């Protein structure tokens, strides 16, 4: 029964996507939106039913594998169209469908005046479907399928406004980087098959400890290849450059991609394959260190850039970094818990940002925003709640989840203490940049757009422009409409944001150290065989960690207040004083340039070389050589072709004679 519900979880979004996509001419826009919302809500309901079914099982057999049909089977490599349902995948299903439902409801209002309403919801449903395939996959090949479909759906959504050059470029970048990640997974899956003879989760995780010894090179290679996939999808160093550009998509897309689903796939992957990673601690450490590096670097970038959505995007990178550290050092349930809370508050932040950007007529630069506290009180409130949760303010959900990871690093001692320090610094930065947004946007005298909203009661409709290049655009198709929608005036948006705000505040109660620890207990069957399953800090240590985290968060908020409210001249001075560092951060540590230099340009150079040099001289030369040879051979025999009939006859005679003589000589 559980499996049936799980299949239905997959079915509904797919059906929704197809229905909306195929009826774009028949159905009115609103109906399409409703179908989209209904499909995801139905999936959520099915997910809950699957959860209930699963909880009915005894703890030791709390996993179900189910297969529809044999997908392909050659040379022992048998691939089923199968799913694997266990607490971990159900946890992900609920997070994904839950947050996606809210995002769909938000989009229903937010995209109201967009020209491609059907297309948007079709893509959106397809995205959810792909993500569900990813989390429910029953073997590594299905995982790759989900993985790549998510990549495709994110491409489609990022370049949703396809007539913006910037959007299509960003989509391309995201897609290609994701494909590179996919290749990592291909190779990992092939290696797994080669060593273990199967790609099914059940078999693989069962046999792996028997086949591999700890840190044997094969298992390390497998895990590193898996990590390539994980890094690419989760925008960790050095595959992070696509994420900021992905902000070209509509705001609900940003929140869907960044908050709940796509970027957390890497975290899910490591948690799913924890059996393998525990056999290859080196690879797990790599994951943790890359996560640490990413969280620090992304934090500094988030402090410097001024594009509202990009700040939140870099913050996402940074938070995913926390999750990587979490699952890398063995704090699986903490990592998954942070994944969930992050989904709530980051989705909320993006939605609030979307609302503000709408009010700014698609302007995204925080330098130009001011005084939205009065203009949009609801949005302002949700923004503050999101920022508090993000910076780990005591009592908020982010406080419980993030500090649990940080604490676990300290608990493992040794070199992990360095991570602990790094993450604390990261936490301080998180608090500062979160409240940098708040303090720059909300207080103070209202800017032009905010004032317009206060005065006229509706949103300003400026000339449609590409926010990245400021080019004027036409609005016929493939562009956001002229009208903008803000939470204050659209019920759907308000509803979704209110629920998320509520969850951002209270989700922490699920995992209060020493009190309930619901998430840990729920996920226990999945991580039962893990060596870290029964290692956790004592309740006292945990609360000590929470206290530290809370203090750092408050300190960060205070610093932000000092910098942006009390002494607004200070940031400018810092900027002048440390201009080199600032330039570095504003330019995102030159990540794009580095990738261009190391990958793109060499590949392009190879292409140019092939095209201009090799093809021209070698291939065409050879072809011309062949042609020339034929031609000169032709020229050589052309003289014989004098047109003299009798000459031809003589030649014939020669031929006959030659043949006759040949046979005569042979017969001798």
């Amino acid at each position, binding site marked *: 029964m559980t499996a049936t519900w799980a299949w239905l979880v997959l079915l509904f979004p797919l059906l929704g996507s197809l229905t909306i996509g195929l009826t774009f001419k028949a159905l009115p826009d609103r109906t399409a939106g409703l179908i989209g919302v209904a499909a995801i809500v139905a999936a959520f309901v099915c997910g809950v039913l699957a959860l209930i079914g699963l909880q009915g099982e005894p703890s030791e057999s709390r996993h179900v594998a189910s297969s529809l049909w044999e997908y392909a089977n050659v040379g022992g490599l048998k691939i089923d169209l199968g799913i694997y349902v266990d607490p971990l995948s159900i946890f992900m299903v609920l997070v994904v469908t839950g947050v996606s439902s809210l995002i769909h409801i938000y989009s229903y209002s937010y995209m109201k005046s967009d020209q491609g309403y059907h297309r948007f919801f079709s893509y959106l449903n397809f995205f959810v479907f792909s993500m569900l395939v990813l989390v429910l996959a029953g073997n590594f090949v299905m995982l790759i399928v989900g993985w790549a479909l998510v990549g495709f759906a994110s491409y489609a959504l990022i370049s949703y406004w396809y007539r913006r050059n910037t959007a299509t470029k960003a989509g391309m970048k995201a897609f290609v980087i994701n494909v590179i990640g996919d290749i990592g997974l291909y190779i990992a899956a092939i290696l797994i098959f080669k060593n273990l003879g199967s790609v099914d989760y059940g078999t693989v995780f069962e046999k792996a400890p028997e086949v591999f010894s700890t840190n044997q090179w094969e298992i390390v290679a497998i895990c590193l290849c898996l990590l390539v996939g994980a890094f690419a999808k989760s925008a960790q160093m050095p595959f992070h450059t696509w994420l900021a550009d992905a902000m070209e998509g509509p705001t609900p897309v940003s929140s869907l991609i960044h908050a709940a689903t796509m970027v957390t796939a890497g975290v899910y992957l490591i948690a799913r394959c924890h059996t393998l990673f525990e056999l290859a601690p080196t690879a797990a450490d790599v994951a943790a260190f890359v996560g640490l590096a990413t969280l620090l670097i992304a934090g500094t970038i988030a402090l410097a850039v001024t594009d509202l959505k990009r700040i939140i995007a870099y913050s996402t990178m940074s938070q995913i970094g926390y999750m990587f550290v979490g699952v890398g050092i063995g704090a699986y349930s903490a990592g998954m818990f942070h994944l969930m809370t992050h989904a709530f508050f980051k989705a909320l932040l993006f939605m609030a940002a979307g609302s503000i950007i709408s009010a700014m007529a698609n302007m995204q630069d925080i330098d130009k925003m001011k005084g939205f506290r009065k203009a949009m009180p609801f949005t302002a409130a949700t923004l503050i709640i999101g920022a508090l949760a993000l910076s780990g303010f005591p009592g908020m959900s982010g406080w419980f989840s993030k500090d649990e990871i940080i604490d676990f690093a300290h608990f493992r001692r040794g070199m992990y203490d360095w991570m602990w320090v790094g993450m604390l610094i990261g936490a301080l930065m998180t608090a500062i940049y979160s409240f940098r947004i708040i303090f720059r946007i909300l207080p103070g005298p209202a800017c032009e757009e905010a004032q317009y909203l206060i005065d006229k009661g509706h949103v300003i409709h400026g000339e449609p422009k590409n926010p990245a290049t400021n080019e004027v655009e036409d609005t016929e198709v493939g562009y956001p409409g002229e009208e903008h929608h803000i939470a204050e005036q659209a019920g759907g948006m308000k509803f979704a944001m209110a629920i998320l705000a509520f969850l951002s505040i209270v989700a922490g109660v699920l995992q209060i150290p020493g009190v309930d620890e619901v998430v840990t207990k729920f996920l226990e069957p999945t991580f039962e065989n893990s060596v870290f399953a029964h290692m956790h800090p004592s309740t006292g240590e945990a609360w000590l960690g929470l206290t530290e985290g809370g203090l750092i968060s408050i300190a960060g908020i205070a610093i932000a207040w000092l910098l942006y409210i009390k002494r607004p001249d200070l940031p400018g001075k810092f900027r002048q004083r440390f201009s080199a560092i600032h330039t570095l951060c504003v330019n995102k540590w030159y990540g794009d340039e580095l990738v261009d230099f190391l990958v793109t340009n060499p590949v392009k150079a190879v292409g140019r070389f092939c095209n201009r040099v090799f093809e021209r001289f070698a291939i065409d030369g050879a072809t011309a050589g062949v042609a020339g040879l034929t031609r000169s051979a032709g020229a050589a025999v052309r003289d014989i072709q004098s047109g*003299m009939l*009798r*000459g031809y006859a*003589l030649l014939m*005679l*020669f031929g*006959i*004679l030659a043949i*006759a*003589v040949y*046979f*005569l000589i042979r*017969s001798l």
Partner: protein
Amino acid sequence: MEEVAFFIGAIGALGAAAAVVALKNPFYSVLALVIHLVFLAGIFLLLMAQFLAASLIVVYAGAVMVLYVFVAAYVGGIEEPKWDASPELRVIGPIMAVALFVAISIAVLGSGLAALGTPGPDDIPAGFGTPEAIGHLMMEDFLIAFEAASLLLLVAAVAAIVLAGRRRGDKGSGTEQRKVLVKADEQANAQVAGNGEGA
């Protein structure tokens, strides 16, 4: 007796052939070829090919050569100019041809075919080379070849009409070309008649 007949026939045929090549006037060449064919028919008889000998005389010496005669007469006895575009052909050509002859002769004489040195088997079936035997073969074993040949003949007749036919605006009189056509038809008819005899 047979030897005498063969040598007379061989010398006659060779002499006439040489005359075909050597005579300046094409009209005479045609006549020489007729003589050659007559001698050749005699040799055919020696090889027990009565029907072929007859058809060689009737069809070839009779019909085809008449065609040659008409054309030669129509075109006129054109003397070849003394100057030859490629004089080397006059020298190399015969030398090569003779070399070919030598090669073939060596091949024939030196070959391991023991039967070559005999006059052929004696126990040949009765009626060897008679119209009846040939007719049976034609209509039974080689029907496809026979049909193909007749088709070829038809195509050739049409081709001759197209090639020699009067173009629009061509002022020349139609008689000659009609003759050609008639000859071509005759040719075909003669052939068919010959076959008919066999059957």
